[in-house]
């Protein structure tokens, strides 16, 4: 029966499409997993196409061998046993076979790709793909690689100062302490402190004030004692830092001290 054979061909196309779609979705998951792994190890994502293509090929071939009218009969009970019987006897044109073919043709309009697909499985696979894409994006944006992950994992896995023991005490950052002493400045070996103390003091000779002779108006200020030394004051840098001060600047400072010391 030609109409039946054409209808069965269309049904087979639908089955092939559904099988290929499932294989493709599975292969995309494989691609994303391999891309993620390769990213961790700083390998180009292009190489993830190899397992993707291999998986797609083998899974598609396996799926094509496995598909049968049974998949449709499971979803459409009206066609149970009838569809495969009619398909296997499609060449028969006797009355009994023709009746069966007509029965099947009447019900074949119910067959569609969306009806045959396992919706729950497809939705969960799509969710997995979205999750993997998000993870891949996060990892690539933050340039997280295997070298970064391993030390962090090792620290968090330490049984004494592990994350799960110390996490309750948010102010306590000593869980970060492992073998080395760390403080807010960082690793000791990374920062070299100077042995000299920084001395910050005013030149007392310049700043002495006779309280008894204090003039409110600020006139006739007299300073106790005399300024020893020359009026020349050089701008000196701190002992802790070597600073090059230009001659011009030195002169400016000099002039200023002279002006404030003039009676």
């Amino acid at each position, binding site marked *: 029966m030609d109409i039946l054979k054409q209808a069965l061909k269309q049904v087979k196309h639908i089955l092939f499409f559904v099988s290929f779609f499932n294989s493709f979705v599975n292969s995309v998951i494989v691609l994303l997993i391999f891309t993620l792994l390769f990213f961790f190890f700083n390998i180009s994502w292009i190489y993830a196409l190899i397992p993707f293509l291999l998986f797609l090929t083998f899974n598609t071939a396996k799926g094509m061998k496995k598909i049968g009218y049974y998949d449709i009969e499971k979803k459409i009970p009206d066609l149970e*046993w009838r569809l495969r019987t009619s398909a296997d006897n499609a060449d028969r044109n006797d*009355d*009994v076979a023709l009746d069966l073919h007509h029965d099947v043709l009447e019900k074949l309009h119910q067959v569609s790709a969306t009806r045959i697909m396992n919706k729950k499985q497809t939705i969960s696979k799509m969710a997995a793909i979205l999750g993997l894409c998000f993870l891949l994006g996060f990892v690539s944006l933050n340039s997280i690689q295997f070298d970064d992950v391993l030390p962090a994992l090792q620290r968090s896995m330490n049984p004494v100062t592990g994350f799960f023991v110390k996490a309750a005490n948010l102010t306590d950052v000593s869980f970060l302490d492992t073998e080395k002493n760390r403080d807010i400045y960082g690793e000791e070996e990374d920062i070299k402190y100077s042995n000299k103390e920084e001395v910050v003091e005013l030149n007392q000779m310049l700043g002495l004030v006779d309280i008894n002779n204090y003039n409110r108006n600020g006139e006739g200020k007299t300073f106790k004692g005399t300024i020893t030394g020359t009026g020349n004051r050089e701008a000196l840098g701190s002992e802790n830092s070597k600073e090059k001060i230009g001659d011009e600047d030195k002169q400016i400072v000099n002039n200023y001290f002279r002006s404030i010391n003039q009676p």
Partner: protein
Amino acid sequence: MTTDSIKKAKDAFEFIFAETAKVVVGQQQVIKQIIIAILTESNALLEGYPGLAKTLTVSTLAKLMDLKFSRIQGTPDLMPSDITGTYVLEETKNGREFKFQPGPLFSNVVLMDEINRATPKTQSALLEAMQERQVTVGNHTYKLERPFFVLATQNPIEQEGTYPLPEAQSDRFLFKIKTDYPTFNDELEIVSRYTEFNEKGGPELKPLLKKETIFQLQQLVRQIPIAQDVRKYAVELVKKTRERKELIEYGASPRASIGLVLAAKANALLDGRNYVTKNDVREMVYPVLRHRIIINFEAERNNFNEDDVIGYLLK
């Protein structure tokens, strides 16, 4: 024949079941299997204790199907000519002539009671009729009228002095039908019916099917389409009987595969379907295989019978 014919056939059989129930209480599976054997143009072996309405069932079905019925009692002194017929000397106008007198085999439905009591020679005469649908007497071969159906019975007890059917001959029966004791309620019904006075003497049975209808139904059975995987399933089941040596000494032959597929088709027809399912095969596998396999000592030691072994194969 169309689907309407299949539906009409189903209605007719339901009517037959209902009419048979007027005479035979219970034994629905036995009646169904006998009808399937008739529809597949095969023969059946009926095993059961005495008094379980084996003869009554067959004679009732023969009446309902408008078929000639004859009964042969198997005894050790039964001769082949007693069942096939023989030449007798008759007086005619032209003088004396030998005329062939057909025996009880020349019926549509033949009930051979206690076939295992008949001698092997008589058994083989019957089996020729079953297989070839013909009878050879002397130099002449006589064709038997169709439909032709033999129902042989066996008693599972008192096997002393009997001639058990060899494997090669029991293989020619499509089914080995087991009859069992009726349930309490059924037995109560039997006692009520057959101990009360009935003016009419018993229910009146009118033929429901004609011979031509039975021929058409037999053709229809063979026309029922079957899917490849169902056919493969039937053949695989039979093949397993030859492979599972841990329980089965000798497995079934390809004749069992043919019988199983035909029986499954007939079962589908009785159900009013124009397709066969694996359940049809599973339902028919017990009567088809139980007399074709020989279980080994290991199975007997574990108190397995043929049905237990078949159930094990189905798993």
